[in-house]
């Protein structure tokens, strides 16, 4: 398979209460094996998926937040978080997990995966995509 397409995975929902965010993340992980140009987007309550210090013990739901830390190893290195969504929820970048990836073209330097972008920038990014999944 030589063709490479741009895949965007948009996450809009809070991490728990439904299984959809976890199922969305499963698509990203499986998709990583196909070596396409991949990015993830977190908007609306989806920004809570990247919140630090998630504790699900009392809910009985599996805490799958550690999986986001593995994304870099799957070469999913661009996670765009919408600035307006963070602000509307009283969050800042410091509230999010410090996710990183290792750049093999730069002596395995550790680089941040999360990029805070504006709603307008996201709109431009959307325009570039070949395949968009909405979770």
């Amino acid at each position, binding site marked *: 398979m030589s063709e490479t397409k741009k895949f965007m995975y948009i996450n809009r929902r809070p991490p728990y209460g439904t*299984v959809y965010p976890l199922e969305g993340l499963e*698509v990203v992980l*499986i998709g990583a*094996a*196909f070596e*396409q140009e991949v990015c993830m987007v977190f908007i609306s309550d989806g920004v809570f998926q990247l919140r630090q210090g998630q504790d699900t013990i009392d809910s009985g739901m599996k805490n799958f937040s550690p999986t986001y830390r593995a994304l870099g190893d799957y070469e999913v290195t661009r996670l765009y978080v919408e600035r307006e969504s963070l602000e509307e929820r009283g969050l800042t970048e410091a509230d999010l997990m410090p996710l990183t990836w290792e750049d093999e073209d730069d002596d395995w330097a550790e680089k941040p995966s999360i990029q805070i972008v504006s709603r307008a920038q996201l709109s431009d990014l959307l325009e570039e995509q070949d*395949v968009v999944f909405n979770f």
Partner: protein
Amino acid sequence: MPGTRYFRVFFYHDGVNNGTRLTTPPQDDRHIVNRWSELSKAHDLDLVVCVAAAQRRGIVDPDEAKRNGKDSDNIAPGFRISGLGQLIEAGIQADRLLVFGD
């Protein structure tokens, strides 16, 4: 759409519930599961149900029933159970991928 070839329909999240033949809507309502089965037969359409989403929601084919020790299966005619790779592969191969759902 005329001239368009649809090569796969992939069912994910709660969409996998389209694939159970145990569905019994009221007689005066449309039977969506049967409509999918008929559509698949008429156009040789590949209807794929995601295995992980299906397991969570109790959609089972004979192989899965055997593998997971279940006493029955419920997959509707024309559907098959497979992995998420089928969705990604479709996204790569097709000119367009359409997503339905909220």
